[in-house]
C-alpha cells in the first residue's frame, strides 16, 4: 500500500516515527537544536494517549527513562550533546541493568556549552559507551530524514532485541531541515514485545524482581559484564549496516563519512565524476558496531591509493577507520568543526589535494 510522502522537519519526523513504533512514552528536556521534538510531542502525545513529561534536567529525565523502561514499555528521549553528557550516568545504569531504551542525540558543537550549529563531535562519546564501565550502546547514524525515520523504528526493535540502550545520532541539520518522508504505519499493541519475563510488574505469583546494576561480588559483576559483552559481540556479527556510494574499481580514493557530511561528500563525488576523477564513498550507518571488516576489504583493494575520512569534528571516527585499515593504506583526514559545515567545493578541493597534482583516475584519457 503506498503511503503518501509528507514534508516534515527532521525533529518532527523523528518524533512521529517513534510514536508509530509504539514508543508513546517520552521524557524530555528542551535543548537546541532538538526542542521541536518535545514541542511536537507535547501536542501529539495526548492524541495517541501516551505519556509526555518534561523533566527538570537531562539528569532527571534520563533516570526517569530507567524507571519507565523497567515497565517493559517502549520509551525514548531526545537531546543534544551537552544534554547527552548529563545522561551518561543513566545510560551506564540502563546498560548495566539491561534495559531497552532509545536515545536520540541531535549533535551540536562542543565541548562545553559549545555552539548550537551542527557538528559530529560526539562520535567518541556515543561509540565508546559514553559513561563509566564496560558497556556499549548500539549507535545508528542517518544521513537523510527518511533514513532517520527508518532507523527510529529499527532502534526500538534493536533495543528490545538486545535489552540495551540504542542511540541514534544526527547532526543539527538532520533535526532542523525539512525533507519529504514516508512515515511507517502505526505499530499495533499486539506487535510490541511484552517483556513480561523481566519487567517489574509487581511480585504477584512470582518471586520479586530486582532491576539493578549493583553486583558487589566480583564474580557476579564479571558475569554480568560478560553477559553484556556477549551482546556486543552478537551486535558485531549481526547488526553492522553501511552503504556504498559510487564504489567502483576506477576509484583511486575511498572516502569514509557519515551523517549529513556523507551527503556533502556525495555531491563532491558527483562533481568530480564530471572531471573524470573517480572517488567512492563508504558510509557507515551503524557506528557501533563499526563496519571494520567491510572497510578493510574496500580499503585494501588494489585500486585504492588512500582513504580519506571526512567528519565535522577534529577527527574521531578516523581512529576506527585507521584501526579497520590496519595500516595497509594511509588514512587522511579532512574536517571542519565548531558548527561549520564544509561545502562540496571544500571536499572536492581536499580530495584533489590528497590525490596529488596528476590525474586521479586510472582511466586513460584519449588524446586524439
Amino acid at each position, binding site marked *: 500500500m503506498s503511503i503518501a510522502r509528507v514534508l516534515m522537519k527532521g525533529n518532527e519526523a523523528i518524533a512521529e516515527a517513534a510514536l508509530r513504533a509504539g514508543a508513546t512514552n517520552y521524557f524530555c528536556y528542551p535543548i537546541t537544536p532538538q526542542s521541536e521534538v518535545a514541542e511536537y510531542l507535547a501536542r501529539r502525545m495526548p492524541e495517541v494517549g501516551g505519556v509526555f513529561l518534561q523533566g*527538570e534536567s537531562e539528569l532527571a529525565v534520563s533516570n*526517569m527513562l530507567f524507571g*519507565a523502561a523497567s515497565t517493559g514499555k517502549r520509551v525514548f528521549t531526545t537531546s543534544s550533546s551537552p544534554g547527552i553528557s548529563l545522561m551518561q550516568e543513566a545510560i551506564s545504569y540502563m546498560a548495566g541493568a539491561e534495559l531497552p531504551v532509545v536515545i536520540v542525540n541531535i549533535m551540536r558543537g562542543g565541548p562545553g556549552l559549545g555552539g548550537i550549529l551542527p557538528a559530529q563531535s560526539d562520535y567518541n562519546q556515543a561509540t565508546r559507551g559514553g559513561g563509566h564501565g564496560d558497556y556499549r550502546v548500539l549507535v545508528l547514524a542517518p544521513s537523510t530524514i527518511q533514513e532517520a525515520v527508518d532507523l527510529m523504528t529499527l532502534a526500538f526493535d534493536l533495543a528490545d532485541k538486545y535489552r540495551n540502550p540504542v542511540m541514534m545520532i544526527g547532526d543539527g541539520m538532520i533535526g532542523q531541515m525539512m525533507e519529504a518522508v514516508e512515515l511507517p504505519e502505526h505499530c499495533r499493541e499486539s506487535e510490541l514485545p511484552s517483556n513480561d519475563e523481566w519487567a517489574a510488574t509487581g511480585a504477584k505469583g512470582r518471586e520479586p524482581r530486582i532491576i539493578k546494576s549493583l553486583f558487589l561480588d566480583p564474580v557476579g559483576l564479571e558475569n554480568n559484564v560478560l553477559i553484556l559483552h556477549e551482546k556486543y559481540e552478537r551486535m558485531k556479527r549481526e547488526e553492522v549496516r553501511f552503504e556504498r556510494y559510487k564504489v567502483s574499481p576506477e576509484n583511486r580514493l575511498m572516502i569514509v563519512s557519515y551523517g549529513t557530511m556523507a551527503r556533502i561528500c556525495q555531491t563532491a563525488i558527483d562533481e568530480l565524476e564530471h572531471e573524470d576523477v573517480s572517488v567512492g564513498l563508504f558510509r557507515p550507518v551503524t557506528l557501533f558496531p563499526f563496519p571494520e571488516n567491510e572497510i578493510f576489504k574496500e580499503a585494501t583493494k588494489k585500486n585504492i591509493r588512500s582513504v580519506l575520512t571526512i567528519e565535522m569534528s577534529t577527527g574521531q571516527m578516523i581512529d576506527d577507520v585507521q584501526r579497520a585499515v590496519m595500516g595497509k593504506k594511509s588514512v587522511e583526514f579532512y574536517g571542519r568543526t565548531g558548527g561549520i559545515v564544509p561545502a562540496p567545493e571544500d571536499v572536492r578541493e581536499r580530495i584533489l589535494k590528497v590525490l596529488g597534482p596528476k590525474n586521479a583516475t586510472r582511466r586513460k584519457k584519449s588524446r586524439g
Partner: protein
Amino acid sequence: MDSAKNAIFKRPEALRDIVTHYCPGCTHGVIHRLVAEALDDLGIRERTLGVAPVGCSVLVYNYIATDFLEAAHGRAPALATGFKRLRPDMIVFTYQGDGDLASIGMAEIIHAANRGEKFTTIFVNNAVYGMTGGQMAPTTLEGQITTTCPAGRDVAHSGQPIRIAELLATLQTPGYIERVAVHTPQHIIGAKKAIKKAFTYQIENRCFSLVEVLSTCPTNWGLTPDESVNWVEENMKPYYPLGCFKDSEKGESG
C-alpha cells in the same frame, strides 16, 4: 523461626527472613519493618514497586519482598516518576537516606514533589553519610562531628542543616509531608501510622507523600545504640521537630 500458633507479634510477610547487614541499633531495620507491615496491612505487596537508593539501604531490595529498581544516587524520585507515569495502577515508593535525598538528589525530590508525582518517599534522616563512613550530610547538625568536619559542622563554612519536610511543605502542589522518629516505642507507633497513611493516600490516588524519619546511626555517631536513642531525643528532635507539615487532604499546610 517458626511462627508460634498464638503469635501476637511476628515478622511481616513482606519482610524477608534474612539477617540484615545493618549495624546493631541502626533503626533502618525498624523502618523496613514498618514499611513491610504497611504493605501487609494494606494488602498491596504484590502490586508494589520499591526504588532503592545509594547508601546503607542500597540493599533494601534484599529485605523488602517487592519488585525493586535500583537507582543512581539521588535519582530515585526520577525513576519513580518514570515508572509511576506509565503504571499509575501500581504502588511506588522510594526509600532514601539524607545523602541521597537532600544532597545529590535535591533537585529530583523537589521537582517530583512539585509535580505531585503520586508515589511515596520514605526519607531516613540520620544526619550523616552512613555507608561511606560517616561524612557530613546536608542534615548534619551544627557542631556535630563527622569525618569531613572533624571540628564539628561550622555553619559559617557549610551553612545550616536543611529541614526537608519544611522545605517541601512550602510547595504549592498538594501533598502529605510528615516528620516522625523511631527511637522509642511511642515514636515508632506514630511513625507506623504516618507510613500507613502515606501508602493509603497513594492507594486512593491522592497526592505525593513523604515521611521523614529521624533515625539513628550509632556507628558513625560514635555512640552506643542506647546513647543514640538519647541523641535523637536531645539533639535531632529540637532542630527537626516532629509533626505533619502538609496534609492537603485536610487543608493543612505549613
